């Protein structure tokens, strides 16, 4: 199959002339060869799956799909097609965001709607292909949705509960198109924005659009993107840099990964537009090394863009030049912070620097630099295409547009949810996510990663909005959204995040380096056996909590960067909303979620125990005593709370509290 560059590249106009993109979509405007235009129009139909003679099988092959076995499914499909002697086009797509239902396979027959099937395993493949390709029917057992109109048999994908409340702007193409194909991207409307601004606008115009749209940084800071660009544009310098922060270090966040794997061209288009807006000639994508698939897709996308003259010299025939390189992160959460990221690109230890000078004035190698998050940049092309007013009509007064959340944890439907700002937390958890599985009780949702807070049921009506979230002691963060149920211990979660922050602290400033360790020690003391029975150490345990708030406020006040400044958040928000749980650990030495092992007590109910001795034999520390056929007892002082006895007992005679 020919590609756009084969058809649209005209010797007379030159590669990547100023109307290259519109020519790709509707035929050569220079009309040197009218037959070509017909071919171009036909190619558009093929690339948007409107015209095809063979069935198309789309397989979701993002990291979550691969982790669920998408490769095995692909192999099974290929084998089955050979067996059935059917020819079909297999298109790998990215992640549509419904990760709980991976592996997702869409089947589109010629002249029929694209139907989406979920939770496909290699075992399901023969039946799936039989039903859809041979019988030409819908395989009801594995049906997810249709891309066509809703009827009695199937619901349109945008109307199923998971997607009904979502508004796809950033994730529009994810899971729909082939992320490796620049042609598909162009055919579905890609690079129209870029061509528009290069032909009709100057840098300030572009900055003004973004300013007017109200777009705010999606990396967590929430700083108005347009304002940032304005600063950088105002700087006079021979070299300026645009950096895309694809470090996504928040544990539990995978929004950026999805965009990079599923729609890398959208990000790159946003980056080129951003570079034009601020006058940058060099760009870097700083992507964490733990995302090899994302890096592969980006490398491919950059190469294709270079071939098409969309990156490099004289882009689309203008006098705008841009070079984009990928820098792999080497495993440091702190490198998500702007000045640390810059230090990392410069080949130094990723340690933040005091600001001023701000990166927009003096950043990478002392030159004006703008760092934008993946999600922020992925919004740019849509804003340019649909206009600032359209964008600012979505969302709330101060938080415009949509936000992508990565839902995980104790939630029925984990995956990505892109919602308009102003959607309530509860809607995301219960309407989109499906609530807590296994009939457990909802406890809290952790948003904003380690810098955020645990929010309880009573604030679930809070709208998702930068300011509203700050008011309830949380932070929008990058979009991590972890749901917790009654079996999660809030103190344990605080410990988990403090441990994470302690490991990731760069160690430069005293409050973060020393303070986070001390906070962790204080929390550890109340969730372990520490000091039980020993008055001196017991005093230490209490002293810790008394001084905890002072320590937390000094760390917030004096830390050099956002990592340190937000390090106490998990603890402070825990104390704010779940104080009883902390007090229970501290005073009653109890953990009602039964997570903090060391302060749990395992007891054998003498009324149920029949003395079979199975637990006695299993106990690794010989802490169970008893005579055969008589109820046994656990020696508490020796018990290591490993839980082996509970697992062994067939009579449910052992309980833990």
């Amino acid at each position, binding site marked *: 199959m020919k590609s756009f560059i084969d058809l649209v590249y005209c010797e007379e106009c030159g590669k990547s002339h100023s109307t290259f993109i519109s020519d790709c979509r509707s035929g050569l405007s220079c009309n040197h060869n009218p037959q070509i235009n017909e071919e171009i129009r036909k190619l558009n139909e093929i690339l948007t799956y409107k015209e095809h003679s063979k069935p198309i099988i789309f397989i979701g092959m993002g*990291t*979550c799909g*691969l*982790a*669920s076995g998408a490769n095995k499914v692909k192999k099974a499909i290929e084998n089955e097609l050979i067996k059935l002697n059917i020819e079909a086009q297999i298109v790998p797509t990215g992640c549509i965001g419904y*990760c*709980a239902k*991976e592996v997702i396979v869409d089947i589109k027959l010629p002249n029929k709607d694209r139907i989406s099937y979920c939770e496909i395993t290699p075992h399901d493949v023969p039946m799936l292909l039989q039903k859809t390709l041979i019988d030409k029917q819908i395989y009801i057992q594995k049906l997810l949705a249709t891309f066509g109109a809703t009827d009695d048999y199937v619901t349109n994908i945008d109307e199923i509960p998971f997607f009904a409340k979502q508004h796809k702007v950033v994730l529009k193409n994810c899971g729909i198109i082939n992320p490796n194909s620049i042609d598909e991207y162009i055919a579905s409307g890609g690079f129209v924005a870029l061509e528009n601004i290069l032909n009709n606008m100057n840098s300030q115009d572009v900055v003004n659009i973004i300013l007017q749209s109200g777009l705010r940084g999606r990396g967590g800071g929430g700083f108005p993107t347009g304002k940032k660009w304005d600063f950088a544009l105002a700087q006079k310098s021979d070299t300026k840099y645009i950096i895309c922060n694809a470090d996504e*270090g*928040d*544990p*539990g*966040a*995978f929004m950026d*990964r999805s965009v990079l794997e599923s729609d890398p061209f959208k990000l790159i288009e946003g980056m080129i537009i951003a570079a034009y807006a601020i006058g940058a000639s060099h760009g870097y994508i700083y992507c964490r*090394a*733990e*995302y090899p698939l994302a890096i592969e897709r980006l490398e491919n996308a950059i190469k294709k863009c270079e071939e098409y003259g969309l990156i490099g010299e004289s882009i689309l025939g203008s006098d705008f030049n841009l070079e984009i390189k990928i*820098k*792999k*992160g*080497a*495993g*440091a*959460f702190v490198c998500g912070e702007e000045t640390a990221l810059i230090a*990392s*690109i*410069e*080949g*130094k*230890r*990723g340690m933040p620097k005091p600001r001023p000078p701000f990166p927009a004035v003096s950043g990478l190698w002392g030159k004006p630099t703008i760092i934008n998050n993946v999600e922020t940049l992925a919004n740019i092309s849509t804003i340019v295409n649909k206009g600032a007013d359209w964008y600012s009509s979505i969302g709330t007064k101060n938080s415009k547009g949509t936000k992508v959340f*990565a839902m*995980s*944890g*104790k939630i029925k439907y*984990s*995956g990505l949810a892109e919602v308009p700002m102003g959607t309530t937390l509860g809607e995301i958890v219960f309407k989109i996510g499906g609530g807590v599985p296994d009939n457990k009780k909802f406890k809290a949702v*952790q948003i904003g*990663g380690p810098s955020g807070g645990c929010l309880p049921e009573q604030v679930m009506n809070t709208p998702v909005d930068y300011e509203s979230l700050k008011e309830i002691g949380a932070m929008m963060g990058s979009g*991590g959204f*972890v749901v*917790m149920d009654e079996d*999660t211990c809030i103190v344990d*979660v605080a410990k*988990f*995040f403090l441990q*994470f922050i302690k490991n*990731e602290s*760069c160690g430069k400033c005293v409050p973060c380096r020393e303070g986070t360790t001390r906070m962790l020690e204080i929390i550890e003391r109340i969730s372990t056996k520490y000091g039980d029975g020993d008055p001196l150490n017991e005093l230490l345990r209490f002293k810790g909590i008394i001084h905890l708030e002072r320590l937390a406020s000094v760390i917030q006040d004096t830390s050099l960067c956002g990592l340190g400044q937000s390090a106490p958040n998990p603890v402070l928000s825990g104390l704010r909303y779940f104080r009883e749980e902390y007090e229970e650990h501290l005073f009653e030495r109890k953990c009602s979620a039964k997570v903090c092992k060391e302060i749990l007590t395992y007891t054998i109910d003498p009324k149920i125990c029949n003395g079979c001795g199975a637990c006695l034999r299993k106990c690794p520390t010989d802490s169970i005593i008893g005579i055969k056929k008589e109820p046994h007892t656990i020696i508490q002082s020796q018990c290591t709370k490993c839980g082996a006895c509970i*697992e062994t007992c067939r009579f449910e005679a052992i309980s833990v509290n």
Partner: protein
Amino acid sequence: MHNKLFEKYEHGSRSHLIGLLQDVQDIYGYIPEIAMIDIGEFLGLPTSSVFGVATFYNQFRLTPLGKNVINVCRGTACHVKDSANILLALENELGIKVGMTTRDKEFTIEQVACIGACSIAPVISINGEYFGRLKTKDIPKLIAEFKKKKEELVNSEGTE
């Protein structure tokens, strides 16, 4: 062996340091001291700067890896689904702590902040292959399978 790498980089530009270290690690599986000194000389940096950068980032190892590298995801979603106990079970099963390699150089346990496969938490990956929705009692069986694979390989080589 690593001196060939230097040809594709610009002399003396510090910004290539992390990329060079990554390439060296791709060759040897870790960063040998001699490579560190050579990188320093190539970029015009004192060895202490190279060492300081190599020890700052999680990715770089200063000792070689085992044959089977187990990455345990310790992200929030996995933690909430009990990955801490998965890690403990692995440590118990292999007799080493996280970050270490077994004496026979067969297994290394590493922990990662987040693999990004949160929907099938808790997740571990062994040599790039993902294993999700794990329970602690699955661990001994899983390790045994990998040990069996090695034996089969050794046996098949023996009979040839």
